[in-house]
């Protein structure tokens, strides 16, 4: 087994109304390129940063507290110098650590600091859009405590859940980015940059570990370099080889006064901290007696955890847990939706689960009702009735269909009689199909067998 060491640097765009150092709005995805600009975020000659956005700092503090960091009393804003078209001032403002020495489970957090997002440069078109320049970002730096892509996935899943609970991050694609540092068997550390999603991190790590293993297997040496993650091919390619570390010539920014963090304010934020995923999972598992692995899946989204908690008071918790993590999550994931964004009301889900439990719909009927619920957004009972998905108690109707199926497949019946069990499944399947799932499969099977016997 190869010895893998992984550390992550995670960038998260914070949820604020205005940019970090000016009053321009932050809805950079909704407007024409270069519309949300002022002299400050466009770095026009003579412009200066306004005060550090207070909401951004509060959001950072909440995240740092959730990651069990020690909060520093003060920090300073620095200038990190580099030239690139996405960077209008020639430097990026980035603070010294504000939170430090935290942890999320067994993964230690080295530090959390705040910085400004650069603009977006389209290399091929040669165009640049500075609407994003000045969106507040935080960078979370972990210690190299992860040993596999799976560790990274678990860490990032929990982190996303926390960000959702705190409601402090921009909730849209591309709002979370990461750089990963990977080495194997004590070899040279390679940095993979520009990973634009958390799922990309896992893919990039998996690729990079195999690539490094292959280099070693062929008798080569892993070299110190920065690699780029290609999302389309799930692979990494060389961005630049570095002989020495880059020199950003960090300087304290004279235009931004030191950031001072009020202890009483931090304590207040701490008191207002909601129950976080890890604690919630433990509590749900304990209070409702559900399996810990199911509890973890439920708490990934706070709305789902809340849904479970309310529904579990009226039925068997483990059954609800399985229903949520099974059929419901399957449909949400397929649509890349959270429960919050799906628009599904708790009363509908509760009603649907109740119908399923009472045997009013089959599992297929339940699934089809659920699928229709995303579009029709009304009572599942009405939907199931309209779509003719309610279980039929009409034995005559079932009998008629079974007659048709048994009569219509003499060869299968003969095969079954000759000892081929699978031939029976085919006949039963056909009957269920014709019944549109409106009858219990066990019952249909019994009735088919009865019919075959009668035919003798």
């Amino acid at each position, binding site marked *: 087994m190869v010895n893998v060491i992984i550390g992550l640097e995670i960038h998260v765009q914070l949820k604020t109304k205005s940019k970090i150092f000016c009053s321009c709005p932050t809805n950079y995805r909704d407007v024409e390129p270069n519309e949300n600009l*002022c*002299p*400050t975020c*466009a*770095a*026009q*000659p*003579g*412009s*200066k*940063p*306004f*005060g550090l956005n207070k909401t951004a700092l509060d959001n950072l503090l909440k995240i740092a507290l959730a990651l069990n960091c020690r909060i520093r009393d003060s920090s300073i804003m620095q*200038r990190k*110098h580099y*030239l*690139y*078209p996405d960077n*209008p*001032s*020639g*430097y990026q403002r980035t603070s010294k650590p504000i939170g430090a020495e935290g942890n999320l489970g067994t993964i230690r957090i080295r530090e959390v600091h705040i910085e400004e997002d650069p603009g977006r440069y389209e290399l091929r078109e*040669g165009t*640049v859009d500075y609407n994003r320049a000045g969106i507040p970002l935080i960078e979370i730096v972990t210690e190299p405590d992860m040993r596999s892509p799976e560790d990274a996935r678990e860490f990032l899943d929990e982190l996303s859940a926390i960000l959702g609970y705190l409601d402090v991050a921009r909730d849209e694609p591309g709002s979370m980015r990461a750089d990963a540092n990977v080495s194997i068997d004590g070899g040279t550390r390679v940095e993979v940059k520009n990973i634009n999603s958390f799922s990309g991190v896992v893919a990039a790590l998996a690729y990079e570990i195999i690539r490094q293993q292959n280099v070693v297997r062929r008798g080569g040496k892993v070299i110190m370099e920065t690699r780029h993650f290609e999302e389309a091919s799930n692979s990494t390619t060389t961005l630049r080889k570095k002989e020495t*570390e880059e*020199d950003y*010539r960090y*300087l304290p*920014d*004279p*235009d*931004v*006064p030191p950031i001072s963090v009020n202890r009483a304010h931090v304590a207040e934020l701490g008191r207002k901290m909601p129950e976080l995923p890890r604690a919630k999972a433990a509590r749900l598992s304990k209070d409702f007696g559900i399996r810990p692995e199911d509890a973890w899946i439920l708490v990934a989204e706070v709305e789902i955890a809340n849904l479970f908690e309310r529904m579990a008071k009226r039925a068997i918790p483990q059954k609800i847990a399985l229903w949520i993590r099974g059929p419901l999550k399957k449909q949400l994931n397929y649509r890349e939706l959270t429960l919050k964004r799906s628009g599904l009301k708790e009363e509908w889900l509760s009603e649907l689960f109740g119908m399923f439990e009472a045997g009013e719909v089959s599992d297929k009927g339940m699934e089809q009702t659920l699928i229709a619920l995303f579009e029709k957004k009304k009572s599942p009972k009405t939907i199931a009735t309209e779509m003719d998905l309610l279980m039929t108690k009409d034995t005559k109707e079932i009998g008629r269909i079974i007659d048709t199926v048994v009569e219509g497949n003499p060869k299968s019946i003969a095969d079954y009689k000759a000892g081929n069990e699978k031939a029976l499944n085919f006949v039963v399947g056909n009957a269920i199909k014709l019944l549109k799932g409106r009858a219990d499969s066990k019952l249909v099977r019994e009735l088919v067998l009865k019919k075959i016997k009668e035919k003798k």
Partner: protein
Amino acid sequence: MKNPTHQPIVSAEENLHRKLSAVDKWDKEVKAFIEVYREDALKRAKAVDNRIREGKAGPLAGLVVAVKNNIAVKGKRLTCSSKMLETHRAVYNAAVVEKLIAADAIIVGSVNLDEFACGVDGTYSTLQRTKNPLDLERVPGGSSAGSGASVAAGMCDAALGSDTGGSVRCPAAFCNAFGFKPTYGAISRYGLSDLAMSLDQIGVISKDKAVMKRVFDAIRGTDPRDQTTQLADAMLRKKPAEAKVIGVPKEFFEGVDKHIAAGVKKKVKELEKHYEVREVSIPTLKYTVPIYQLTMAAEFSSAMNKYDGLRYGFTGDRNEELYSSFSKARDAALGKEIKRRIMIGTYITMKEFKDAWYSQALKAREVMKEEFASVMKDVDVLAGPAMPTGPWKFGEKMTPLEMYAADMLTIAANLTGTPAIVEPLSSDFKDGAIQFYGRHFEDDVLFGIG
């Protein structure tokens, strides 16, 4: 050229005409102005006269003010006297420009400077050579060369400059005018192009001390767009202090021209009638030039990083590879002195050399601040010469080091953030000027001395 005497303002329009005729008469030779806002100014003067008649005029009604061309005036050229910004027009007004307009001053135009305010005599302008109106063969002083020259030639009542190491006070002294560098943080720098952010401060030059004070009062105050002005408003509400004790640091007279030193000492002697005068010592003053050069160059190299030929001003070659386009644009459009400072600033902030240079300068600056604070516990103001020499002639050979040394008496005010004022000693610019330093946010005290 004779000193035109200051006359009381009859009407804004009349005053403006007087100044414009001085511009027409002298500026072909003096070359103080980069742009004259003739039409706009005439329109504004008419409007201001209406407000004067209605009794609604602002505190600077009718005063004609020139603005150093590193301060943004919306829609006007903002060149910083550099090829890099030769074609650039400001897209917004600097905070001080907004305040001048709100106070009913008339902005007559923008005036020349050393490129990006880097220079002590005005000769590092890449657009034009400004001459000293008092002796056309001599330099006007820098970097606010056009500010000093336009005031001296009677082309405005006051001019705004910027002062990073003496850039307001040097041309004031060389052009025999009053010059004032306020406390760091007293005036918003929003709209002032950066030289060294922790040292830069907007200041005023005028031949009339009272006018200079009026302009300062109109443009000072807290501005949320410049966080270093946070204290300005609160400090304004403080009861103004009164100076009783003047300290004279002996280090201020080292290496100073004998004639000027004697003139300043004579003036100090006269002040003994009204103040207690003490000799004091501030040992770190010996190191002002290196501390300043390192701090300034480090910050300047950072401030200049935005000039890559991509977004405004000089346009780099779009067909070139990115980094080659950046470096060619910077090479073509920035002057020698600018490059020298960027290179020094970059070198001393590199990981390898930072501890040996930049970090040392930061520490030394803190020591200097402490020394100043300790000396100024017992004395209310400091007095000494403004410049070690008078204005030299164009073409006099000077090494960069000699040029840098000319700042030695002014830069301590920037390093410590304290206010400083310079005043002519006589009607002859050759007699030099005296300078007073005050305590933080005791700017008003300085207007009552001398």
